[in-house]
């Protein structure tokens, strides 16, 4: 069965869809770059945005590749490759694939138990559980953003001062980061029983190391005016943080 799931035909289907999405990304990239120049934005800044986003993404992508490898044992390589290149999220795919396998009666996700019907059913379930962001964007992205922007402009005109919208986004993101860091603290203190301090300390140490390295990068970028460093600061901090995990 696993040979069938790794057949060239499946690679062509999944690779074709990934290729389509890659072209879409290129179109958006080129359009945005051109619009940036038309809006009088600094070319160097536009290029730095691209460089920093590329360096930023490399390490998490290698982490996602591990997800592909993990799922390829039971679902073959092409399908997890498609799911995790496009639309999928690392934490989602494994969970849904597992739940789907149980529904199909395959039991646990494994190549030995997989059948053609089982695979097709799991694949379809993985596809229909998560596309809502795309569907909602299709129907509501335009009107939702218009509504928000209209409100911001109104507020700005009325009060003659910067609106709260931007600060709200920053606050939301800080809440997101706090939830994750809080979960590492909680995991260490109570992960192996309430207040036992025997849980996994590694994620907390990794995030602290990564934050310290980020502080060093920021110092050089801001105080020593090494602006080019900014593009690599997150990726560099992550790399050192992840290396720290190996030595703990």
């Amino acid at each position, binding site marked *: 069965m696993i040979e069938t799931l790794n057949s060239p035909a499946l690679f062509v289907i999944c690779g074709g869809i990934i290729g389509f999405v890659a072209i879409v990304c290129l179109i958006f990239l080129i359009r945005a770059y051109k619009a940036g120049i038309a809006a009088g934005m600094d070319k160097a800044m536009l290029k730095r945005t*691209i460089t920093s986003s590329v360096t*930023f993404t490399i390490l998490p992508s290698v982490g996602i590749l591990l997800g592909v490898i993990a799922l390829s044992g039971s679902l073959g390589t092409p399908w997890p490759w498609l799911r995790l290149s496009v639309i999928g999220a690392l934490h989602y795919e494994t969970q849904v694939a597992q739940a789907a396998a149980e529904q199909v009666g395959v039991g646990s996700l494994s190549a030995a138990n997989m059948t053609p019907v089982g695979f097709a059913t799991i694949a379809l379930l993985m596809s229909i559980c998560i596309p809502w962001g795309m569907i909602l964007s299709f129907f509501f992205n335009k009107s939702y953003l218009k509504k928000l922007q209209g409100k911001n402009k109104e507020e700005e005109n009325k009060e003659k001062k910067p609106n709260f919208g931007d600060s709200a986004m920053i606050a939301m993101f800080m809440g997101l980061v706090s939830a994750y860091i809080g979960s590492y603290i909680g995991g260490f203190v109570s992960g192996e029983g309430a207040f036992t301090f025997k849980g996994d300390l*590694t994620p907390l140490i990794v995030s602290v190391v990564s934050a310290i390295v980020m502080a060093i990068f920021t110092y050089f970028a801001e105080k020593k005016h090494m602006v080019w460093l900014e593009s690599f600061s997150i990726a560099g901090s992550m790399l050192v943080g992840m290396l720290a995990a190996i030595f703990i």
Partner: protein
Amino acid sequence: MNNEYLEKYNRGTHIIGRIVSAIALFLLVGAPFLIGKIIGGMPNLSAVAKGFISVGLIWTISSVVEFLVYTPMLGAGGGYLAFITGNLINMKIPCAMNAKEMAGTKSGTTENEIISTLSIAASSLTTIVVLALGVLLLTPLQPVLQSETLQPAFANVVPALFGAMAYQYFRKNLKLAVVPLVIMSILFILVPTLISQTSIMILPSGAITIVLAYLIFKKKGSIEG
């Protein structure tokens, strides 16, 4: 002229965004049927329906919340792309926020729309290339990536990412950061079972931070400090 160009750009973004979202949806839902035809077994629709009720409903609700929360952060172009390419919390959102921080743009502005789109597009292409190379070189790479020595490093990609992002954001808004961080830590210490639900706990944490930010903003006109 520029305004006209940018308005046309924005209209175009929505048209292209909608078309490609529809095509991507069609391809992703259609693929299992096409594959099923090739491997000789069509999806069992009643099992799909049962599975959807047991796992899909939760994801549907969280997708609605993700759309409402992240679309304003990502803008139009970035929003369409990010929802097609996925991995929002662990990659696209931090990536766009980092780009925004570096460029110093404000949410809701044309400049931010452009920076966000560039960032999400570049990030998505990078993932596609890394995964394609990874799949191509799977045989030689697999033992290296799955080696026991490197396992802890890859198991901690997300903590490394959020550690760096925490410094970047907390240093400018230290007072604002302390409260959600303390509340969330206490919550996870008292109810450790919530740790596996961190992606949902983002919502109360974000809500608390927004309320606090609003109070500080009303008082000082800015949240920095």
